[in-house]
């Protein structure tokens, strides 16, 4: 029986794209109003039914992800499981929103809106860049450039003015050959022929005037050029600088999830390379664009007005040259791109080896590493040699094609001049014979045109590069941060009560790490989080620090939803010590005061003292001014950790988070730090994660997480009595400690 189903009858309807015979399809998953779950491999005609079942039989829907695809699975009320269908990663978002809504419907009988944020462009159906509404396929270059410059409106007048100056210099440049022509035609040529058409004017004086006029033009051009260039350099530097700052600010504002989507290298590249591509473009290419524009239009107008036929000779080769050169560029560009990639691969190997030089030496694999590097270099050398050869052949050929027009004009122009002097010599096929002055003027104009032609052919490429960089920057600059302060974010005095209410969270929404957790942590309480690795301990504290937002449920700080509290207030009130301490390049003092830039030295020393750090710092030759971080004084793990603790407490935070703060230390150092922490946690809500369970023995309460849920809660003693998960963990650790001590 195959009853027709209309999508209008659907409660929910989403796409899937792999059919039962492994082929790509555009299928539809439909949950109908009369509670049938039905799948069609052909979603347009709702034909090729692939699956049908009574929705009331389903207990829970889930997704299990595979490689390159995932499957929608159902757990039935009778205990069976069914793989309903598979889909590629492209449908993952849709299907996971569907199962969220469907499961909610099963649980509560209530319908919710399926919120599928469209990730494809409505115009072309292709992907947006993640978290933005930018479609690289559709966005045209003009809109990208406009969007980009919209970020620096203040700079536009300065740019426009410097553009105007360039325009003026180029117009002046076109006037010079005109003066030269007058010089030749009215004075020099007649003089050489023994004619004196200047009447009673003094020819030497006139020549002087003309020469001075030319000199004036040159001087004006140079002066204006210098002014324009200075203006342009200053403006573009300021503009790009402001973009860089905007970009940097944006990176700081973006949430962890969108930062971690990108690599560090990628972000640094955006900040340095892309911005400098744009600076270079503004500084040099825009000038050329104006220059070429003026010269082309000016010369074209001159030729059409005076010598229409000659225009043909001059301009006919132009499209040919542009076409040939564009093809040439495309061809050579690809090869150079490959060469560039090979060179960065070789560099990558070098980086890798030098970074891991200890491993290489320990394993004695120098020879094979050398071989790897030489192989990469050999490939690079081969490719670049080929490219250079090609370039050496093609470039002169291109130059020759460019020059053809010039020769045509030279030949026919010179004939025309001869014809003008004596009608028996040569023919003037270009109309009225040329005067010598006109001829020199034409030749210099041709030089003006053909000079930049070569450059013109590479223009599309450099525009494309600049626009690509702009698009990449737009991508970040216009990204909507998914975690941001509400408009009227609250700035309450934080006391330190934390409660999770039915909280669910997963880094991928279809793979919850914490499931429906409800948990109360009172102010001043010290709570230890315990559980196997990957169980969600760090996730829980990431949520408290609001590095991520919950998928569903609530997280309250003193009864206020964390999303309503301003990030700044939150940060000021939470101190964190991680297992891996990151100290910035700078002095120890700078590193501690980082948490509270307005702290007095007394405060800094006190924080260090509480953290048990003061004593060792004071013994260093440069004491608090000791430079640490990369290229700085190397501190031991314990010392770094104590500095981190000093940094965390300087703020006097109401909530203290210790994520394996002492895990990497030996027991003696740990006990020193523990002692420091004991002083610290009084009166503060403390949440500590530790694998070494002895670290948590002072905790008021231990919370055992298991499979994303709170499995056990209580004091150390209570949990031991329970003989549950915690008991087993403790026993397992005792076992290993015993073994370790036996071996000694």
């Amino acid at each position, binding site marked *: 029986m195959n009853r027709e189903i209309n999508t209008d009858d659907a409660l929910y309807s989403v796409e899937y794209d792999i059919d039962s015979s492994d082929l790509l399809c555009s299928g539809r998953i439909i949950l109908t109003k009369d509670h049938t779950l039905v799948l069609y491999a052909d979603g347009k005609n709702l034909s090729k039914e692939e699956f049908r079942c009574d929705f009331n039989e389903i207990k829970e829907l889930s997704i299990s992800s595979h490689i390159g695809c995932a499957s929608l699975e159902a757990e039935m009320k009778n205990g069976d499981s069914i*793989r309903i269908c598979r889909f590629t990663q492209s449908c993952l978002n849709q299907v996971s929103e569907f199962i969220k809504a469907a499961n909610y419907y099963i649980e509560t009988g209530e319908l919710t809106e399926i919120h599928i944020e469209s990730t494809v462009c409505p115009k072309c159906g292709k992907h947006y860049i993640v978290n933005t509404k930018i479609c690289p396929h559709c966005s045209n270059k003009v809109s990208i450039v406009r969007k980009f410059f919209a970020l620096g409106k203040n700079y536009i007048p300065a740019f426009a003015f410097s553009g105007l100056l360039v325009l003026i210099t180029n117009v002046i440049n076109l006037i010079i050959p005109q003066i030269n022509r007058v010089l030749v035609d009215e004075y020099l040529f007649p003089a050489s022929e023994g004619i004196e058409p200047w009447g009673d004017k003094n020819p030497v004086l006139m020549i002087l005037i003309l020469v001075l006029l030319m000199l004036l033009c040159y001087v004006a051009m140079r002066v204006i050029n210098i002014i324009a260039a200075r203006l342009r350099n200053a403006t573009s530097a300021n503009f790009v600088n402001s973009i860089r700052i905007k970009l940097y600010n944006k990176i700081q504002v973006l949430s962890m999830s969108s930062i971690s989507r990108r690599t560090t290298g990628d972000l640094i590249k955006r900040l340095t390379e892309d911005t400098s591509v744009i600076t270079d473009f503004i500084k040099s290419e825009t000038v050329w664009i104006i220059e070429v524009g003026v010269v082309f239009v000016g010369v074209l107008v001159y030729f059409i007005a005076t010598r229409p036929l000659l225009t043909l000779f001059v301009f006919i080769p132009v499209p040919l040259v542009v076409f040939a050169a564009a093809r040439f560029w495309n061809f050579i560009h690809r090869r150079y791109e490959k060469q560039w990639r090979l060179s960065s691969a070789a560099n990558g190997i070098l980086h890798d080896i030098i970074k891991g030089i200890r491993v290489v030496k320990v394993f004695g694999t120098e020879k094979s590493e050398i071989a790897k590097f030489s192989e990469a270099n050999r490939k690079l050398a081969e490719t670049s040699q080929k490219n250079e050869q090609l370039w050496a052949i093609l470039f002169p050929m291109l130059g020759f094609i460019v020059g053809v027009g010039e020769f045509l004009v030279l030949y026919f122009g010179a004939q025309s001049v001869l014809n003008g002097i004596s009608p028996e010599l040569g023919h003037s096929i270009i109309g009225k014979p040329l005067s010598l002055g006109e001829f020199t003027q034409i030749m210099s104009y041709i030089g003006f045109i053909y000079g930049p032609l070569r450059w013109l052919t590479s223009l599309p490429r450099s525009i494309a590069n600049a626009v690509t960089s702009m698009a990449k920057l737009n991508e970040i600059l216009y990204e909507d941060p998914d975690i941001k302060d509400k408009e009227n974010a609250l700035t309450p005095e934080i006391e330190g009560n934390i409660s999770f209410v039915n909280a669910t969270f997963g880094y991928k929404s279809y793979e919850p790490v914490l499931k429906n957790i409800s948990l109360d942590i009172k102010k001043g309480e010290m709570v230890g989080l315990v559980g196997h690795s990957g169980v969600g301990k760090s996730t829980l504290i990431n949520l408290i620090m609001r590095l991520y937002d919950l998928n569903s449920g609530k997280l309250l700080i003193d009864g206020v939803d964390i999303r309503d509290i301003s990030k700044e207030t939150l940060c000021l009130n939470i101190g964190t010590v991680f297992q891996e301490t990151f100290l910035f390049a700078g002095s120890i003092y700078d590193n501690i005061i980082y948490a509270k830039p307005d702290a007095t030295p007394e405060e800094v020393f006190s924080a260090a003292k509480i953290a048990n750090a003061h004593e060792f710092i004071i013994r260093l030759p440069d004491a608090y001014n000791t430079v640490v971080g990369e290229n700085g004084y190397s501190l031991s793990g314990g010392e770094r950790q104590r500095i981190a603790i000093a940094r965390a407490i300087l703020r006097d935070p109401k909530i203290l988070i210790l994520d394996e703060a002492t895990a990497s230390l030996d027991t003696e150092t740990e006990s020193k730090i523990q002692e420091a922490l004991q002083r610290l946690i009084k009166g503060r809500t403390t949440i500590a994660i530790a694998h070494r369970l002895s670290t948590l023995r002072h905790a008021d309460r231990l919370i055992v997480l298991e499979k994303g849920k709170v499995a056990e809660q209580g004091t150390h003693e209570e949990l031991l009595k329970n003989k549950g998960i915690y008991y087993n963990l403790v026993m397992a650790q005792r076992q290993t400690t015993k073994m370790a001590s036996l071996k000694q």
Partner: protein
Amino acid sequence: MNDNIIVELADLEMIDVNEAKFAPEKGGYLSLTYKGTEYGKVKLNRALPYRAPDEYICVSDKDGKEIGILRDLASLSEEQKKIVSDELDKLYYSPAVTRILSAKDRMGFMYFEVETTAGKREFAVRDASRNIKFIDPDRKTAVQIRDVDGNRYIIDDFMKLDSSSAKKIEAFLI
């Protein structure tokens, strides 16, 4: 069996194919009866998905505990082999590209239109030189493409691709 002390210590369970019987299970899953125990909803993982996709298949139970490693699909009977490779095909989805119809560069994204063994497909690749690459030094001419969504496509032998298709991605391969 093996005189390497490391192999002895680790005690890998290499599945004895004579004692293993894979069978399709209700609901579209795979089951394994091994040494008298029946495991439902077993999971398969390729240990060397690029170098040797049909060798060293880890088989684990529904909770993820490893039952053993299947040394080589070729050692199974035809019928068993088909059952296992059908399941692998379900878990590893990577249509083979047979022709590249078009490749356009837009703002650092490459847009492809391709024919694959699973039908026509359009997709976008970001950072093409990182996401289009030879997959393994041991399979020198096999190319993998990953699109922006995380889908995978494979070109089994780049050398056998027609020249117009090959030209479209050649520059990204190093």
